[in-house]
């Protein structure tokens, strides 16, 4: 085994200067926390926090047939996107298993930006290139290393960005984007998206401009937040984590992602036949949200029991700083998925009573 060198984002010196604890994450050396996970979590819920998400994959898919290619490889009917609109989508294999969850933005006619998970970035790029049908006029360009990506999230996110940018941010609807705007004097692409359950933006700049934009947001009063808070925030918002909550053994209907599978436009995307069958059959198991009223924190991998019999496993679990309780997501037989169902999670040999609750655990008070 050769030891692999971890990759560093263009914001690495910023993280070190802020005293971040760095950890390996999907080949990258990333900050897990700066001041503390709970403080960072609350900063995002109450004010604004910034995250280096440069480790996420970014592809520029351009050409007259860009939309056709993306429709072929992903489940959502992106023909519905007008310029400036974005949507969550999935890459599935022929069996309907989820290869990744992605975001697709229509930047202009024949030009899309696709954001993928860090751990899948290269696989996704290669998958999309391999599945480019013969004769399509389209170019897939990996722009991950030449760009930086920063998320700013929280109720004050918009005013923080607005203080650095003349762009008409209030006109951008959730999930939509603006290209070629200026922020802190640098050019950027921004989208009104995120992974925390709060409003906010994700900002893509040239890699060399990343530090200046990061510093400007920080000086404007946003708190630097690491992967630790990113995980507690997304779990409270019941946003799925690829590799934990979804993977190629899961179909979109089991994961509650039927809303991103467009079957009615007739497009023959990869996995369509399998997903038609899966939809007709209905999911045998379903992802549910579990909350405990007792002390104890369910973690990924813990067994879920119903009447002393194991019926599933926790796919993501942890402590919710907002609820001050243990929360979890996991798969159970669909017959048990009703809200209010009492289940038990085996936390290192100790039974923890949990109840199925409405998804998500946390939703923001104001839009």
């Amino acid at each position, binding site marked *: 085994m050769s030891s692999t060198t971890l990759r560093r984002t263009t914001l690495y010196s910023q993280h070190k200067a802020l005293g971040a604890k760095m950890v390996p994450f999907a080949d990258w050396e990333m900050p*897990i926390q700066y001041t*503390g*996970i*709970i403080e960072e979590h609350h900063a995002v819920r109450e004010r604004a926090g910034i995250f280096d998400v440069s480790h996420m994959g970014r592809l520029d898919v351009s050409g007259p047939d860009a939309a056709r290619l993306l429709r072929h490889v992903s489940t959502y009917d992106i023909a519905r996107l007008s310029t400036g609109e974005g949507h969550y989508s999935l890459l599935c294999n022929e069996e309907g298993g989820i290869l990744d969850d992605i975001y697709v933005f229509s930047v202009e006619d024949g030009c899309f930006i696709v954001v993928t998970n860090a751990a899948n970035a290269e696989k996704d790029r290669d998958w999309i290139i391999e599945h480019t049908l013969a004769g399509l006029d389209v170019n897939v360009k990996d722009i991950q290393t030449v760009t930086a990506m920063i998320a700013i999230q929280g109720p004050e996110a918009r005013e923080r960005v607005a203080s650095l940018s003349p762009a008409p941010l209030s006109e951008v609807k959730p999930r939509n984007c603006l290209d070629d705007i200026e922020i802190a004097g640098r050019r950027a692409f921004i989208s009104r998206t995120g992974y925390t359950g709060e409003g906010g933006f994700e900002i893509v700049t040239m890699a060399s401009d990343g530090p200046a934009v990061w510093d400007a947001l920080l000086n404007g009063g946003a708190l630097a937040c690491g992967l*630790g808070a990113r995980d507690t925030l997304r779990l409270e918002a019941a946003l799925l984590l690829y590799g934990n909550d979804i993977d190629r053994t899961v179909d979109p209907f089991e994961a509650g992602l039927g809303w991103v599978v467009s079957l009615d436009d007739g497009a023959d995307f990869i996995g369509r036949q399998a997903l038609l069958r899966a939809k007709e059959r209905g999911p045998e198991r379903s992802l549910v949200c579990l909350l405990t009223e007792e002390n*104890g*924190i369910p*973690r990924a991998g813990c067994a879920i029991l119903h009447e002393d019999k194991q019926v599933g496993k926790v796919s993501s679990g942890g*402590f919710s700083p907002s609820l001050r309780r243990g929360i979890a997501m996991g798969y159970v037989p669909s017959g048990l998925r009703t809200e209010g169902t009492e289940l038990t999670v085996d936390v*290192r040999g100790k039974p923890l009573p949990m109840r199925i609750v409405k998804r998500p655990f946390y939703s923001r008070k104001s839009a």
Partner: protein
Amino acid sequence: MEYPDDLRYSREHEWVRLDGDAGVIGISDFAQDQLGDIVYVALPAVGSEVKFMEKCGEIESVKAVSDLYSPVSGEVLARNDSLIEQPELVNSAPYGDGWLLQVRLIDPSELERLLGTQEYKDLTARAEE
């Protein structure tokens, strides 16, 4: 990082402060920093027995759960129940209000098997490398 001189430390990052025939136990500044925000502490009941370097509880942070080992053998005389509502005291005051247990020592020679301040500092310096 702070390491008071009047304590003995275990290799598992607990400390003990001798007070008559009893010892007060907690976890070190290094340990609380490594764990991050502590959200739940499970401690043995008053009156129960704990044994030298055997598991006697759990400390759970947002990130992970860790076993707590008792750095001395004896009977639990008191436990810090304020940690039920305020587990974060372990982070903010690991040698003060964030103490965990008070134990009546049955074998004070166990303290000699623990580390002094300098030895413990060296251990944490190596761990950080």
